[in-house]
């Protein structure tokens, strides 16, 4: 088994702030982390490797600092890590990103055929959930998104059975390798790295590929040039100008506050109140 896991280094968005005046992102000191959704996929890949043997390669396309994210994946037990980095990738949207990654994965496959690719459900900075499907399409792999469980994997018949979350239920699907899987969050828990893997990660020499090493010949398909979407404007969510009407009562007792509120509701929002009464019946 050879599994490739696509991971992305993202700013910990919980710690991002917007400058109240200029509406720009204040990035200073915001730590970079492995996209949390990717860890569910990495863990699943490692689990499959534990059962079936083989190799797990992690790959990311990003700036040189993304090395830290790859190293972290090595500490969890990934075998190899590849950083695809080139100025020419700057400004890539999901179409250009999936092209670059698909080409790089094809390059990896020249070394050892790739049986499965794992992607995160989505990133927390881009949030698009498109790169995975994009890679699958470009590599002509079967696509299994929102997988909550890999039921079974048969290497000899090259088939895999998974459970996939759909809107109203769960689909049990079977497909042939090679395929691309994106795992649903919360489906597993990342293992705690062993001391040996910590040492390995700290000393690991990762592979750094530029555009050419990744096998990308056509520059018009990557970076800003290869991106059909254009960001025309970035702006702050409109602040509602109207603040809440603060309910007060003379006594300030909870009971009086509640009654004041309810009488306001029922007099000023008759339609809603009707719904409330109906619902409660």
């Amino acid at each position, binding site marked *: 088994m050879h599994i490739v896991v696509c991971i992305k280094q993202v*700013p910990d968005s919980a710690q991002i702030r917007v400058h109240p005046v200029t509406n720009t992102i204040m990035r200073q000191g915001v730590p970079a982390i492995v996209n949390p959704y990717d860890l569910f996929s990495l863990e699943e890949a490692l689990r499959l490797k534990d059962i079936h043997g083989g190799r797990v390669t992690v790959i990311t396309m990003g700036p040189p600092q993304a090395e830290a994210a790859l190293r972290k994946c090595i500490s969890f037990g990934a075998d190899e890590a590849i950083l695809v980095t080139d100025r020419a990738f700057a400004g890539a949207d999901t179409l250009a990103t999936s092209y670059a990654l698909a080409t790089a994965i094809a390059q990896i496959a020249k070394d050892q055929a790739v049986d499965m690719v794992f992607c995160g459900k989505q990133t927390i900075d881009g949030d698009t959930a*498109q790169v995975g499907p994009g890679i699958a399409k470009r590599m002509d792999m079967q696509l299994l998104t929102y997988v909550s469980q890999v039921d079974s994997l048969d290497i000899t018949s090259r088939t895999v059975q998974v459970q996939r979350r759909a809107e109203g239920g769960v689909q049990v699907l079977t497909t042939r390798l090679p395929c691309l899987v994106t795992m649903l969050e919360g489906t597993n828990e990342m293992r705690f790295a062993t001391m040996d893997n910590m040492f390995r990660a700290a000393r690991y020499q990762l592979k750094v590929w530029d555009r050419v090493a990744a096998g990308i010949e056509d520059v018009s398909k990557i970076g800003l040039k290869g991106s059909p979407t254009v960001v025309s404007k*970035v702006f702050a969510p409109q602040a509602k100008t109207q603040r809440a009407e603060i309910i007060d009562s003379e006594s300030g007792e909870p009971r009086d506050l509640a009654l004041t509120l309810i009488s306001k509701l029922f007099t000023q929002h008759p339609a809603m109140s009707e719904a*409330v009464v109906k619902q409660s019946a």
Partner: protein
Amino acid sequence: MSAETKAPVKKAGKGKYELSDELKAYQGVWVFVEHERGEVHPVSWELLGEGRKLAAQLGVPLSGVVLGAPGLATRRFCEEAFFHGADNCYLIEDAALGNYRNQPFTKGLTDLVNTYKPEILLLGATTQGRDLAGSVATTLKTGLTADCTELNIDMENRSLAASRPTFGGSLLCTILTLNYRPQMATVRPRVMSMPQRDNSRTGSIVQHPLGLIETDIVTKVLEYIPDNRQDKPQLAFADIIVSGGRGMKNPENFQLIWDLALLLGAEVGASRPVVQAGWVDLERQVGQSGKTVRPKLYIAAGISGAIQHRVGMEGSDVIIAINNDPNAPIFDFATYGIVGNAMTILPALTQAFKQQFAVAKMAS
């Protein structure tokens, strides 16, 4: 989309963008009508409502796209699409489309686009819509903007201006797809409002073959395990939601939320810390990484109103906030606020509603 996180903003819209003749041939607004187990996902109707406005601005027709197995339902879906604003529908009926699967649906939708050339294609940002949109956009090599919260037409360029949250919701960005067609976008359920249904509307159906047989399809559906609807919270469609946040302090206090919800026949919602602490299921999380909701009444107790929570619920008709911090951000956008301890206000509110209902009952 990595574009808005990394890219220097490529300024569009300075001059008018001239489309090639080939791209000019793309006309009309399409909405993919998503269905599962014989039911159309309401997001499709919401999108038809939004698509109607876009089509009117462009002066083009609005179409629904239905893919499904032969049978009555697909026709009914087309009819419903007309009721919700579609002028016509593109329909592919094939046994291979019985259950949603990426390969045949991608093939069908891609073929339709290549044949009938819409300029805008909208899908719900659901597990199905996102799965399909990514594959279709890649096949068509066109732009796709995910999880939009606002759609407009930039008339100068005759292009779709799709706005979406970025950086965890702290900012919004507007994205254009200038010289590629169609322009694709996904929108989360409940972000757009439901259009008025008009049973008198009709439209025409254009049928198209799938051109794929079952043996060509690699992935098979072995089984479909429907969710037990009874246990599953239906937050997205609830009329009343009572939500609690970290300010409820512990699971025992959180029971006060359930008490009020039970009385009101409401769904229980929660902010992320509450979900992470395991007091309630993930299904109940409201916000950017949870559900978007639009109830008639949203009661938030012990919730600060962080932007990630706000984006999921600010579409509610009436918002009541209970928070002991008068400076909590939630008071900036709630309709009514009570500054006080949720542990005493909630029981009082439950009691007061009880009284009100008793009065209402007597009156009727």
